[in-house]
C-alpha cells in the first residue's frame, strides 16, 4: 500500500486511504479551531497546550502519549483486521474487558509463579479471553446469519456489566472498600522501559502491527482474509477459500488482539481491574482503524494521533481551561471528517483496499 501511494498517479482520481486521512485531519483541525474560537477560547493557545502536553518532553511523550496509544494500537489492529475480512466487529471494547479480567485473574490467582511464566500466561489468557468473547457473535453469524454489529455491541454491555459485578463481588479487593481488585503480583506486570511509565506493551504492539501488515500482504492466510473482505462471493466461487473458516479465524484473532489490549493495560498501567478501566478504547479503535484506511502500519500513526489528542486533553484543560469534553468533540469531528472524506474521495469507484 505504501508503494502504491508513492507511485505517481496518472490523472486518476483514486486517492489512497492515507491521503483521505490527512484531508480528514486538516478538516477536523480547522473545524475544531473554529469551534474553540466561537466558544471563546484562544484556539492557538489551546493548540499549544495540546502540543506541549503531548510532546512537551520525551518523558511526557513516552509516559503519557505512547502509553495512551498502546491500547489504541492493539484495538485498532483488532478492528482493522476484522473490517478487512468484512467482519463488522464493534465489540473491541467488550473483548478488551474480557482480556483485562483474564489477566487480572491470572495475576491474582498465581502470585507465586515466576515472572517468565506468569506474565506470558496472563497475556495469553487475556488474548484467549478476548477471542472467546467473540464466540457468541461468531456462532450467531455463521450458524444463523445474525449480523455481528448488533451482537458485538450487546456483548460489550455484557462485558461491562460483568466487570462491574466482579469488582463489587467475587474479585473485590481484600479491604472491601473500593470497587476494584487487589493489584496483581509484580511478576504479572510488564517491565518498564526507561525511567518513565512507558511499558513493554508498546513495542509489542508495534511489532504486532508490523507482523499483521506483513501477513495480510504476503501470506496465503492474509490473502484469503482480503479476498473474503473484498468479495465474499468471488472468494466462495473460487472454490479454494472456505469463507466461513476465514471469517471465523479473522473474528477470533480480532477478539484476541482486543483482549490482549485489555491484558496489556492491566499489566502495564492499572495493575488492577475496575469499572471504566477503558475510556472507550474499543470504540475509539473504530475511528483509529478507519482513519488508518484499515492498514495495520497506518494504525500506528492513527493510534498515535488519538494518543496525542487524549494526552493533550489534560494539558488543554489545565493551561487554557478548555473542558476535556472538547477533546471528545474533536475526536468525534475527526471520525465524521474521515467518513465524509472517504465518501467523497472514493465516490464513483468501487472501494479498493490495497494490500
Amino acid at each position, binding site marked *: 500500500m505504501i508503494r*502504491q501511494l508513492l507511485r505517481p498517479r*496518472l*490523472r*486518476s482520481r483514486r486517492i489512497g486511504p492515507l491521503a483521505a486521512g490527512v484531508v480528514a485531519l486538516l478538516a477536523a483541525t480547522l473545524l475544531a479551531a473554529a469551534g474553540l474560537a466561537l466558544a471563546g477560547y484562544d484556539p492557538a493557545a489551546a493548540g499549544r497546550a495540546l502540543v506541549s502536553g503531548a510532546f512537551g518532553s520525551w518523558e511526557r511523550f513516552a509516559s503519557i502519549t505512547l502509553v495512551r496509544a498502546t491500547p489504541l494500537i492493539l484495538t485498532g489492529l483488532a478492528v482493522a483486521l476484522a473490517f478487512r475480512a468484512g467482519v463488522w466487529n464493534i465489540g473491541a471494547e467488550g473483548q478488551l474487558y474480557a482480556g483485562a479480567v483474564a489477566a487480572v485473574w491470572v495475576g491474582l490467582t498465581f502470585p507465586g509463579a515466576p515472572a517468565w511464566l506468569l506474565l506470558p500466561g496472563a497475556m495469553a489468557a487475556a488474548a484467549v479471553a478476548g477471542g472467546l468473547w467473540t464466540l457468541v457473535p461468531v456462532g450467531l453469524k455463521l450458524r444463523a446469519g445474525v449480523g455481528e454489529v448488533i451482537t458485538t455491541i450487546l456483548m460489550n454491555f455484557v462485558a461491562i456489566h460483568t466487570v462491574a459485578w466482579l469488582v463489587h463481588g467475587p474479585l473485590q479487593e481484600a479491604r472491601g472498600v473500593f470497587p476494584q481488585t487487589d493489584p496483581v503480583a509484580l511478576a504479572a506486570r510488564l517491565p518498564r522501559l526507561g525511567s518513565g511509565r512507558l511499558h513493554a506493551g508498546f513495542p509489542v504492539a508495534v511489532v504486532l502491527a508490523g507482523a499483521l501488515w506483513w501477513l495480510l500482504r*504476503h*501470506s*496465503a*492466510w492474509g*490473502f*484469503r482474509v*482480503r*479476498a473474503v473482505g*473484498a*468479495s465474499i*462471493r*468471488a*472468494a*466462495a*466461487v*473460487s*472454490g*479454494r*477459500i472456505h469463507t466461513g473458516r476465514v471469517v471465523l479465524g479473522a473474528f477470533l484473532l480480532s477478539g484476541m488482539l482486543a483482549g490482549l489490549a485489555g491484558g496489556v493495560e492491566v499489566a502495564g498501567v492499572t495493575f488492577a481491574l475496575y469499572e471504566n478501566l477503558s475510556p472507550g478504547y474499543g470504540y475509539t479503535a473504530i475511528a483509529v482503524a478507519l482513519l488508518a484506511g484499515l492498514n495495520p502500519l497506518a494504525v500506528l500513526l492513527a493510534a498515535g494521533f488519538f494518543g496525542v489528542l487524549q494526552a493533550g486533553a489534560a494539558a488543554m484543560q489545565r493551561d487554557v481551561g478548555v473542558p476535556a469534553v472538547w477533546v471528545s468533540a474533536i475526536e468525534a469531528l475527526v471520525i465524521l471528517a474521515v467518513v465524509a472524506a472517504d465518501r467523497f474521495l472514493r465516490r464513483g*469507484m*468501487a*472501494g*479498493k*483496499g490495497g*494490500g
Partner: protein
Amino acid sequence: MGGAAVEMRSVSKRFGSVEALADANLSARPGEVHALLGENGAGKTTLMRVLCGMLRPDGGEVLVEGRRLPPEGTRAAAAAGVGMVHQHFTLVPSLTVAENVALGTREGGGFRLALERVHERLTELEQVTGLPVDPGAAVAGLSVGAKQRVEILKALYRDPRVLVLDEPTTVLGPQEVDWLFGVLRSLVEEARTVLLIGHKLDEILRVADRVTVLRRGRTVLAEGREAVDAPGLARAMIGRETTPAARPARVEAGERVARLKAVGALGEDGRTAVRDVTLEVHRGEIVGIGGVEGNGQRELALVLSGRRRPAAGSADLPATVSLIPQDRGAGGLVAGFDLAENTALAFHDDDAHRRGPLIDWAAMRGTAHEIVTGFDVRAPGWRATAQSLSGGNRQKLLVGRELARAPDLLVAENPMRGLDIAAAAFLRAKLVELKGGGPGAEEAGGAGGRPAGAAPGIVLFSTDLDEVLDLADRVFVLVRGQLIAVPEAERNPAGMGRPMFGSEQA
C-alpha cells in the same frame, strides 16, 4: 449530417497509459438501430459512457439532436433523452423491481415515493412491450435474464429519445432476444434512435440499420446494413481474416469423474431451484445443458462444482473442479484486485505458488502472465485491477484462470458471454482441445502439470442452443430445476425447444 440524432466527433479518452478512444466518431440518425461493434477492449463501452455523461472525454464533442452536451454530467445527457442499459447490472438487489425503476425518476425523486404510479406505468409498459414483469418482486431473487429485462424496462420507463444498450442479449434466451428486437423496432418507428452493442454478428445484423466498427479506439467503418456482411465486419473489427471454428469430433469418453444422484438444491429465495437431478460426467466429454436462464442453472452449477452442498441427494466430485460462474465477469473476480491477485484466488494455496505459508507472488505473476498472454487479455498494465478491464477482457481473465487450474471437471455457465468473435472461437477451440486431452490441455495445465490424456469432463451450461448443439456430446435441457435428456434424434433447436416450452417466464 444535419439530421443526426447522435453525433460524436473525434472523441478521445485515455486511462493512464491506455488509449481507450482515439478520435472516435459516431453518427446515428433518428429512426435507426445503429450497431456499435468491435473486439473486446475496442472502446465501445467507453464511447457510450462518454455519450451518457458518465465519463469526461479528453477531447472531442458530443451532440444529441443537434445540441452540444457538456463534457460530463449524466443529468444533461438524461435531459437530452439519452438512456442506457449497462453491460453490468446497476440494480439495487434489496429493492423491488418497481423501486429500482423509480430510482432517479420524478416518481422517486420527491418526498413521497409514488410507487403506485410506477406500478401503473410498468403494467402499461408490460402491455405495450409484451414483457412479463412482477413490479413487486425483489430484485435479489431474480435470475440474470429477469434482471436484464428489468434493466431494459427501467431504461424504457424513462422514455428515451436515444437508447443505448451495451450487450443486452448476452443473458437473454432466443425468445427474449426476439422480444427485445421487436421492442427496438417499434422504438425506431417512433423516430427514436437505438445504439446497440453486441458480439454476435448474425444476431446484430438481423436488427441493425447501420453499423459503426471501432478498432483500438478508432472508428474504422461506418456503413449501412446493406453494404456489410458478417465476414467483412469481422475483418474490420480484428484487422484480419477469421477462420470458422471446426466442429469437434466425437471422442470416446473416458472414466467417470463426477456423479450426481437425485440432487436437489435451494435457490437464493429458499425455494427449490433444482430437483432430483441425476447426472454422470466422464473425462473427455462435453455435457451440454441448454435452457432459459433462471431454471436452476446457477444452483446446479454450484452443486456440480462443489461450491455448494446439495440440499438433497449426493454429489460425488473429483478433486479439482473449475467453475466459470454465471454472473457477468465479476462473479468470479474481485473488482479491486489486480491480475495477479485475481489469479491467486484460484492458486494461492497451490504448492507451485507458495513457499510455506507465504504466497510466491513471483510465481503467481508468472501464472497470471501465462493466462494473460494465452487468452489475450488486454489489460492497461500489470497492476490493473479487474474493474479497469473491459467486460470481455474480464471474462477472458476468468476463463483463462479456470482453465489454468488443469481441472478434472470444468463447469462453465455461458463461458462465451461477452467474448468477441476471435475470443469466442479461441475458447471453443480450447474446449475441444481440452476434452481431447490434446495440446491445449497441456498448455492450459502448465500451472498444474498433468499427464496428457487425463482430459477433464466438461459441463457446459448455455442459453445459446446452437452453442450446446455444436459442442456437446450429450445434450440436456434444464427446465424448472429438472434435467431432461434430449435424445439423439431430437438434437436440433426445435427438439430442444420442446421440453423448454412454457418455461420462458420462469
